[in-house]
């Protein structure tokens, strides 16, 4: 089943084209990795797909589960099953992790026509999900992303992912700023969430995370589009030869 289909997408920010004629299809059960050098516009791709307001699509199409993704508001895309684990999760002072997540979970339930969870039901769900990821109850009371370390932030993103159960999760540099232990926790968390019905799109510029979450497809991204696709071996090849050799092919 096709989860995400992107066709000849051209988009950018502040009237600068960054994504150029980009195409990609992701099926349920697959793990895709997009690898590219720093500054290639990988994060732009994730923002465009998630619908961040400053980003403008000039041409091309995209579908999430057959729905016209580009016509949807950011919250609709989220509720329809698209999750973006952000490279720099933002702090919201005064709003606790549990309160924030309750809003998010119930927004999604409402969208799906399900009754909202009350405080007790939600807390039960939250605590068990947090436990799986080794997140303490104390942590859930803290203001979201306020004073969190890099590792805590990323773990919190994965906690949100585990509660929202997206069909398509985009992990934008989920490994940046993490030491090897934290990286392992994040990867284990993500692996636990994998099913035959959902899919992952991992955006990264190096291999560490891909050693822990095995991709089915690896795409090399440069100059706004995919310059080469392959299987997991492509990542290894890239590790040995660097981006330069691939870029020269273009």
């Amino acid at each position: 089943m096709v989860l995400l289909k992107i066709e000849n997408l051209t988009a950018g920010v502040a009237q600068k084209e960054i994504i150029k004629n980009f195409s990609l299809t992701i099926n349920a059960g697959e793990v895709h990795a997009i690898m590219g050098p720093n500054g290639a516009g990988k994060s732009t791709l994730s923002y465009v797909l998630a619908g961040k307001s400053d980003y403008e699509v000039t041409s091309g199409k995209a579908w999430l589960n057959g729905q016209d993704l580009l016509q949807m508001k950011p919250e609709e895309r989220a509720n329809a099953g698209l999750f973006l684990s952000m490279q720099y999760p933002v702090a919201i002072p005064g709003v606790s992790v549990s309160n924030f997540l309750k809003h998010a979970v119930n927004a999604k339930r409402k969208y799906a026509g399900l009754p909202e969870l009350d405080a007790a039901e939600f807390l039960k769900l939250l605590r068990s999900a947090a436990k799986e990821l080794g997140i303490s109850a104390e942590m859930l009371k803290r203001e979201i992303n306020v004073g969190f370390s890099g590792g805590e932030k990323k773990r919190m993103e994965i906690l949100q992912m585990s509660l929202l159960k997206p069909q398509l999760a985009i992990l934008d540099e989920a490994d940046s700023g993490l030491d090897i232990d934290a990286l392992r926790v994040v990867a284990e968390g993500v692996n636990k969430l994998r099913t035959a019905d959902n899919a992952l799109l991992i955006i990264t510029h190096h291999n560490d995370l891909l050693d822990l979450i095995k991709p089915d497809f690896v795409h090399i991204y440069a100059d706004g589009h995919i310059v080469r696709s392959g299987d997991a071996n492509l990542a290894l090849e890239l590790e040995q030869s660097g981006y330069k050799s691939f870029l020269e092919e273009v």
Partner: protein
Amino acid sequence: MAKQAKILEELANEKYKYGFITDIEADTVPLGLNEDIIRLISTKKNEPQWLLEWRLKAYRHWLTMTEPHWAKLNFEPVDFQALRYYAAPKQKVRPKNLNEVDPSLLETYNKLGIPLKEQEALAGVVAVDAVFDSVSVATTYRAKLKEQGIIFCSISEAIKEHPDLVQKYLGSVVPYTDNFYACLNSAVFTDGSFVFIPKGVRCPMELSTYFRINAKGTGQFERTLIIAEDDSYVSYLEGCTAPQRDENQLHAAIVEIVVLNNAEVKYSTVQNWYPGDENGKGGVYNFVTKRAACRGANSKISWTQVETGSAITWKYPSCVLQGDNSIGEFYSVAITHHHQQADTGTKMIHLGRNTRSKIISKGISAGYSNQTYRGLVDVAKQANGARNYSQCDSLLIGSTCGSHTVPYVRNRNKSAILEHEATTSKISDEQLFYCQQRGIGAEEAVGLIVSGFCKEVMQNLPMEFAIEAAKLINISLEGSVG
């Protein structure tokens, strides 16, 4: 959470939900203000001579005063002769209990969400004194409170039944010479609440008054007096609404609080007077003087206010810390949207030794509104060991609103420690996007971010009130993001 969803639904189709006008016959006085009008009001209210004389003294003094113009507010001048200074719902006799109250009045309160009948029957936890235009209509729970010696009634009744108490304390915290609007209020005040907590009594329930302006062209000049004797405690809630009208309505109230040895008063306000429409037409002019005197040692006053309404707000609930070791607190959330203007803050006057004060002010501006925090921390020469902590945070939504902070500090004691922190921030696109990416719609996201911003203040409100206030915040900010 269900609540949150309900709020959003409400958001979608409502503007100022309290904008209804109750059609009941009102007993009024002619337009305008002169000594005869004051005499007429006093006669209608069967007042004692001393009070009439006090009113007339205030009126004569008021004639010598001019409106203050130092606040950062811009509005059409009020024509004080075009106002009506008294409007009472017309009734043959004063009601003895709720059954005697005009049913359409009770219906109004039901729309406001304070079903008096129900409350009395259910023997809940809140005693409500409802002030409709100018006369206090019904006071619930009075009997139960009376058992402990607590007096909770309209100030008109207190003038008749407890004249000694009223005469002793009326104007003792806010003298009629205090300021232009306070002086006017002293001359023409029509009703308000009176609370007396005797020595050693802890009031067993939250006392609550709902104010509502109804009749056309009436100014509401209510006057509240709260006295907490030694070792007593009371928590008082005040909620305000006004029907939607095109013309501006004037509201100039006074709240006086006297706190004696070891006593504590907590005063919470949710102010939701009609703010005017999105083009700035209509709305209430809210010129209010609120002040508490901590006269006794170890006494404490805590003001908490959530201000979302009024076209113009001019309000500085203050604490006069006379008693040694007395404490004053001010927690405020003020929200302005569209063309609302608010100049609000507090005064902490440290007179006693080791007096402490805390100011937490959160201002949220949206639309074309303008908001100023104006506060004074004043430490007298003898106030050894005085301490103040002030924190003033402003949050801007959009780029057409304004926010200003004007903290005055006057310190004449070297041992005093004063701290002031201030921040100004905007709801960032990043924060909004983060919420939206988690499925939370823009309006709800703004509500969530704002509630986080106000958390320190909201957690000081009594539970029931906090829910109400959170709803109001959401409603007030409707349409503030694209």
